[in-house]
């Protein structure tokens, strides 16, 4: 029962989210079992809520990979520079007219940017010898800040308004999602989850410390590299499609770890489901609370997710069980 609880919650949230919005859908259930029957439901709301599920799963798993690879409780795409790098890669490619928002091309460029920024963080953090968690976070924040300002400069200079606003890239929005946008982000999320699933047992060993993992026969740098690639692909796909949605990468794995313990195979599934749940709820809140305006979803995820994290830490100081 405990294992299926997040799935049940996610299914409920999914249908509730589909049923509420700016307009009333007449005969909701009839419309839902007849694909394509109601345009507002099928062409606007279904793609949007589906995107929320996919993006949430991607960010949850990206956060898990970040924390697992760095063996660090506060590592997440936004802190390691991954999200900012992805936004930069996408904005740059869009503003020079190479690709359009939400396309596979934009996702490819976003993922490249994510890889670049994340590797930069790891490289710079390791400049003075062994990779310390503390240095990694500080360097990550700096790299993030640099790439975020690049995004600001690029979107201010871009005459193409399709490049979208700095607010979109910093806080995210699912308002402009269409069903075509789902293809690319589904692919990257699947790849990210697959990599996470594949290396999960090694992340278990890595959590015992680099030396122990090495003595257990783990190729530490190879696992870390794979994690970095998986993290960049998952977060890169999500960010280049809907902008940077903060907090999911941090909150989802922590909540999963709190409920289900430290085994990474389990955590991959549960981080994905819990991430999806948070994003679906947050998007529903952001599009209904201030009608007819819509809030950037990043504001809602922070409002929903931050208290959860504080509560977790307050209830149980040792969220990061293995340290």
């Amino acid at each position, binding site marked *: 029962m405990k294992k299926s609880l997040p799935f049940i919650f996610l299914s409920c949230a999914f249908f509730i989210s589909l049923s509420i919005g700016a*307009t009333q859908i007449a005969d909701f259930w009839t419309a839902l079992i007849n694909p394509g029957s109601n345009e507002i439901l099928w062409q606007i709301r279904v793609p*949007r809520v589906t995107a929320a599920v996919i993006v949430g799963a991607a960010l949850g798993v990206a956060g898990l990979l970040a924390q697992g690879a760095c063996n660090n409780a506060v590592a997440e795409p936004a802190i390691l520079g991954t999200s900012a790098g992805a936004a930069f890669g996408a904005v740059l490619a869009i503003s020079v007219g190479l690709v359009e928002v939400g396309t596979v091309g934009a996702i490819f460029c976003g993922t490249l940017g994510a890889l670049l920024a994340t590797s930069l963080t790891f490289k710079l953090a390791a400049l003075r010898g062994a990779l310390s968690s503390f240095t990694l976070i500080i360097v990550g924040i700096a790299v993030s800040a640099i790439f975020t300002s690049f995004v600001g400069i690029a979107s201010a200079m871009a005459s193409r*308004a*399709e490049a979208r606003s700095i607010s979109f890239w910093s806080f995210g929005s699912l308002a402009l999602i269409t069903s075509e946008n789902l293809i690319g982000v589904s692919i990257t999320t699947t790849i990210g989850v697959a990599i996470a699933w594949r290396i999960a047992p090694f992340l278990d060993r890595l959590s015992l410390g680099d030396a122990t993992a090495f003595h257990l026969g783990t190729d530490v740098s190879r696992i870390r590299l794979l994690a970095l690639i998986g993290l960049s692909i998952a977060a890169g796909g999500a960010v280049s499609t809907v902008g940077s949605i903060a907090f999911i990468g941090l909150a989802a794995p922590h909540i999963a770890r709190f409920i289900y313990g430290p085994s990474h195979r389990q955590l991959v599934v549960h981080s994905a489901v819990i991430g999806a749940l948070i994003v679906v709820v947050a998007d529903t809140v952001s599009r209904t609370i201030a009608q007819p*305006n819509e809030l950037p979803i990043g504001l809602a995820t922070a409002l929903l997710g931050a208290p959860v994290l504080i509560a977790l830490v307050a209830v149980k100081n040792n969220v990061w069980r293995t340290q």
Partner: protein
Amino acid sequence: MRSISLSTSGSFTASRVVVLANGVAEIMQSLNAQSIIVGRDISSSEDSLSQIPIVTSGHQVLAEKVIALKPDLVIIDASTGPQSAIDLIRSSGVTVVKTPESWRLGDISVKVRAVAAAIGAQSQAEQLVQQIDQSLVTSQLSWSPHVAFLYLRGTSSVYLIGGSGSGADSLLAALGAIDVGAKELDRPFNALTAESLAQLNPDVIMVMSKGLESVGGVKGLLKLPGVAQTKAGKNSAIIDVDDSLLLSFGTRTPSLLQVLAKALEQVRG
């Protein structure tokens, strides 16, 4: 776009005029007073004015540039700003006249008379008003399309739709078209989500040219969620009108109405 103009010229009480209000330059041209315009704001964008220096930065009036032109009259309206620049111009001894803004067809004559009074051309104004009134009589459309006037800002996640008092409502009403925004919404501009736009389901979507450009043209607009689900989206019934012309309500408006009528007939599905 053809403008209604007087064939005879007269004399004016001002000799160096700076216009800082949308549509005023157009009216002065029609009164054959273009020769006394020495400076303009960025919204006075007709080609025939291209030789006249612009004295605004964006929509902000630069007092120094205005005073340097040594005008004897500056014409502003309620949206001209910042106030500090206007105060500065006034305190340098220049006469500043505020003319009314126009948001409806009925406002055109009021504005023409106000501009004419400012430059001392009252008698010409009556002639011009008469000509405008005659040409405003438009033929009705062969259908009553539901039209949504959208204000697009490419980067935003919600649309702004023109409601009652947006200006577009007056133009559409004159043609016998139905402004779906004005029918439902009391404010001139209203936030609208993709879903609400799909539900309003207009036959035609009217936008300003620069706004259309900001979403990547008709192709980009048709891809946006909400637009694609409307009848207008399905039939590509999109009409774009030059930004400064659409809501200027001046001497080019009668001819704009004819062009709009033609466009609305063409997109009939």
